[in-house]
Each structure stands twice: as C-alpha cells, then as structure tokens.
C-alpha cells in the first residue's frame, strides 16, 4: 500500500496545525496571546486563512514571464513531496523499496532550487530576484553539510534503505531480512563486549550506537534549518529587507502552495533527521532487567499494536523536532549574508569532512 494515502492528507493537516502552533509559540515567547478570535483560542484561524486564500484572485504581474511564474509553485511542492516517498512510517509500512533510498531523497529535494529560481526570475521583480538568488546560494551552500552529515550515518549503517536503518536502531534488529545475527554493542564498539541488542531504547539509537554522530547530528540540525529557509537563516524572505523574498509577487492559492512546501520541507527534514539519528520509529524506553519497557512500547511488526506504537514514536519525535525549529526561529536574530556563507563553507563543511574520517574509523572499529 502506497504511503501517499498517509502523507498527502497528513502534510495538509500538519501544516494547518503547524501554522497555528507557530503563531501561538511565537506569541507565548513574545508574551502575547496570538490568534484568539476565530474559534476557541483561535483554533480555526488557519482553516479560515486557507479558505480565504482559495478565494483570492491569482495575480500574475504584467511584466512577469508567465509560464515560469505559474509552473514554479508546482515544481517546488512536487519536488519536496516526492522526498517523502522513501520514508518508512511504521515497522511494517514503508515507502518505496528502492535501493537508493535516502540518496534519491537528497537528489529530488534539491530540485526545489530550480522551482525557487523559476519563481524569483519569472516574477521579474527586484525583491523576488534578490530573494531567489539568496535562497539558491543558501540552499546549495548548506546542501554540502547536509549531504556530508547524511553520508556519515550511511557509513555507520552501511545502507541507503531508510527502513533498514530504522530496524538497526531498535530491539527488532534481528527481525529484518539478512540481519538475523547482527548485534548492537554499547557505543557500537564490539571490543567493550556489552551487548545492548536486547536493551533497545535510546541505547540503540544511532547517536548512541556511534557517539561520533552527535556532532554530525548538530551539523545536520543547523544546516537543515538553512535548507528549509527557516530563521535564523531566513535571509531569502527577510521581511524587513525583501518584503517576502522569492514569493513577493504570488497571491492566492499559489502562495499557499509555496507556504505548504516550506512547512512540508520542515516536516521532511525532521522526519529524515529522526530516522537517521534519533531511532526512527523505535521507542526511547529501554528494557531494564525484567521490566521490558522497550518490548511493551514497540510491539511486533505487522500487528496493529506494532504499527500504532511505531507511527506514534516517529511522529511525536518529528513534531518535537519541529517545535524546536520554531523555538529557534523566535529566539535567534537573523544572520548576515557573509556570516551565513562563512558558517557553511568555513565551519560546517570542513568539520563535516573531518567527521567523515572519524565515522569511517568508527565503522571499522564497530566490527
């Protein structure tokens, strides 16, 4: 069964709640109320906004390149949406089984740069063009640290298949085909000879299986913030300088699509990060002696309990991640362009390259 029947409605519902959540979180951080008028505590605010956006006129500026301008949002959304295809949802419900897995995800998500450039260039507005160029420069610069940090995980797990990576990080490791005899050791070092295969929980998460992945995780977090154009890396749509960046000229439903893609991108990087570093759909609770917390909160694959537990853990971790992204947004001021570029090229990239060396050594010591 294709995962599209889960992800397509989920992205929509999640976006509605995330926009509301973001407005509320920002309001509480700034000591105000946020939306309060539509429904109790402003619950229906985003729904009302969405209904309003559908009714709005679709304005295409006279000077714009019409084709590019109209197609761009579709390309942006589709390329990001296609990234979801390789993600597993539960222990027995994964997306496509292609061997390329996360590699395909990175490739197709980069295509949204093309959409952003089309939108910015096609609008023939100075704000849009500046925003698009900044956005493209930023996304391709931070693509390097993101890809290198994903590579570190691939080196540790020796697989591009995200479902296989998920199985490696929990007590079900031996249930996956070809991994019947694989064991997890504490910190991944077999020389310590502490077998944690049956402990499960956080002890088998990737950041615990190979603690070298903790700095990698930090690099991934910072650079995916920039990838999804979130503050403090929101130069492309810096309101105070560029009005709205590359989507200045968009209105109505086309604008809504761009907004949907931005939130979709947040969800995608959060889900990917959870799968790669934070144990995917595995429970955080370990087995302690006779108290089999991990077994109780995981369930067998293919059963209803197993499916429900795994989707619960995956989504709650991802939504926590998104809440942290929002928290960061309302805490840190925006970077300057020279700081942004030097952070990517002079700090994150060399550091990520160094971590590849360390991960390679760690992997060989793991065996």
């Amino acid at each position, binding site marked *: 069964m294709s995962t599209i029947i889960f992800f397509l409605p989920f992205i929509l519902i999640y976006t509605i709640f995330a926009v509301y959540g973001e407005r509320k979180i920002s309001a509480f951080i700034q000591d105000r109320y946020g939306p309060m008028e539509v429904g109790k505590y402003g619950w229906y605010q985003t729904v009302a906004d969405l209904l309003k956006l559908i009714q709005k006129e679709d304005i295409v500026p006279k000077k714009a390149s019409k084709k590019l301008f109209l197609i761009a949002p579709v390309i942006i959304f589709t390329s990001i*949406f296609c990234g979801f295809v390789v993600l597993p949802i539960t222990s027995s419900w994964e997306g496509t089984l292609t061997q390329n897995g996360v590699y395909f995800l990175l490739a197709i998500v980069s295509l949204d740069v093309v959409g952003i450039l089309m939108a910015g260039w096609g609008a023939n507005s100075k704000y849009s063009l500046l925003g698009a160029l900044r956005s493209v420069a930023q996304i*391709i610069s931070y693509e390097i640290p993101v890809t290198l940090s994903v590579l570190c995980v691939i080196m540790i797990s020796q697989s591009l298949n995200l479902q296989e990576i998920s199985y490696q990080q929990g007590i079900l490791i031996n249930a996956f085909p070809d991994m019947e005899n694989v064991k997890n050791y504490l910190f991944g070092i077999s020389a310590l000879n502490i077998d944690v295969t049956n402990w499960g929980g956080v002890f088998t998460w990737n950041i615990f299986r190979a603690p070298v992945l903790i700095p990698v995780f930090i690099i991934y977090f910072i650079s995916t913030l920039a990838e999804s154009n979130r503050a403090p890396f929101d130069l492309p749509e810096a309101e105070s300088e560029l009005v709205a960046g590359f989507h200045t000229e968009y209105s109505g439903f086309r604008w809504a699509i761009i907004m949907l893609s931005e939130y979709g991108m947040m969800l995608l990087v959060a889900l990917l990060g959870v799968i790669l570093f934070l144990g995917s759909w595995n429970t955080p609770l370990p087995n302690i002696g006779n108290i089999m917390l991990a077994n109780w909160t995981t369930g067998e694959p293919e059963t209803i309990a197993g499916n429900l537990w795994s989707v619960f853990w995956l989504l709650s971790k991802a939504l926590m991640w998104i809440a942290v992204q929002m928290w960061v947004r309302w805490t840190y001021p925006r970077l300057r*362009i020279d700081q942004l570029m030097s952070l990517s090229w002079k700090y994150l990239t060399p550091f990520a390259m160094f971590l590849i060396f360390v991960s390679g050594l760690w992997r060989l010591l793991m065996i």
Partner: protein
Amino acid sequence: MSNETASFGEILIYLIGGIVFISGGLFTAWIIRPKRPNEEKLTTYESGEDPLGGAWGQVNIRFYVIALIFLLFEVEIVFLFPWATVFGREELIEATDGLWGWVALSEMFVFIFILALGLAYAWRKGYLEWDKPEIKPSDFKGPVPTEKYNAINHKYSKFTSEQPKK
C-alpha cells in the same frame, strides 16, 4: 517487472499525486476566485512606487563562484555514496582478513583530501569571502553626554561587567 522498477513506479505515484493535488487545488480556486485585473494591480510590486526598469539584469559574480564550488562537492558526493555502502561490509572484511576496510578507507581519504585541498584553495583565494558591512562610528554629538548613557546601560545590563567610562 523487477523489484527495483516497481519501486520507482511508486515514486511515479508520488510525482503524479503531488501534481494532481496541486492542480485540484488550483482548479477549485479557479472556479471560485474572482478575476478582475487592472493596470494598477498588474504592475510589479516595488513598495508602492512605480517600478523603475525590470529586474532581469546582471547578477553578482559571487553566486556563480559559489555554484561552481557547490558543483565540485556534489560530484565528490556522487562518488562517496556508493563507496560508503560497501567499505564497511562485514563479509568483505572477513574475506580479506580485515584488509578491505582499511584499504577502501585510506583510498577514499586520499580522494577527500584532494577535494579538501580544492576548498582550501578557494578559501585562500578569497572566493568564500562576502562583502561585510563597514561599521563607522557616528560623529553625531547629542546634547546628553555619553557618560549618562553608559551609566544607564551599565545599570540595566546583566551581562557586562564593564565599568562606565569616566
């Protein structure tokens, strides 16, 4: 049909699904939205002023340089991914008495090192430098003496232990 082809069929479902979803939304919007264009509405937005010229012009050369450096790294990464999935395979390492892993790793270290040299070259040449704003001290002389400001700043700041200048 092979398994690999079938899995790319699922990617096609996502591709079509995404486009159909967007088209459906746009079609719904097209039915219910008004269409009343006029001259003012269709001008390019420039903060309320009449726009001067178009936006299609020259772009700062730095963007091209960044794109080129990015290309260099992307090509590197294309080679790194297939390597990353095989260099630590247990069966290969056991078959060669542990030699496989170390040889594969050191070969790739040489490869990455050469690319790191490329980055160092671009760094040294200053291609990674962007314009920094110059912060000029203002020569404005206000009626309130600076010491008063410093005293107030000092009084309400939690973080600095700097003494107000006399």
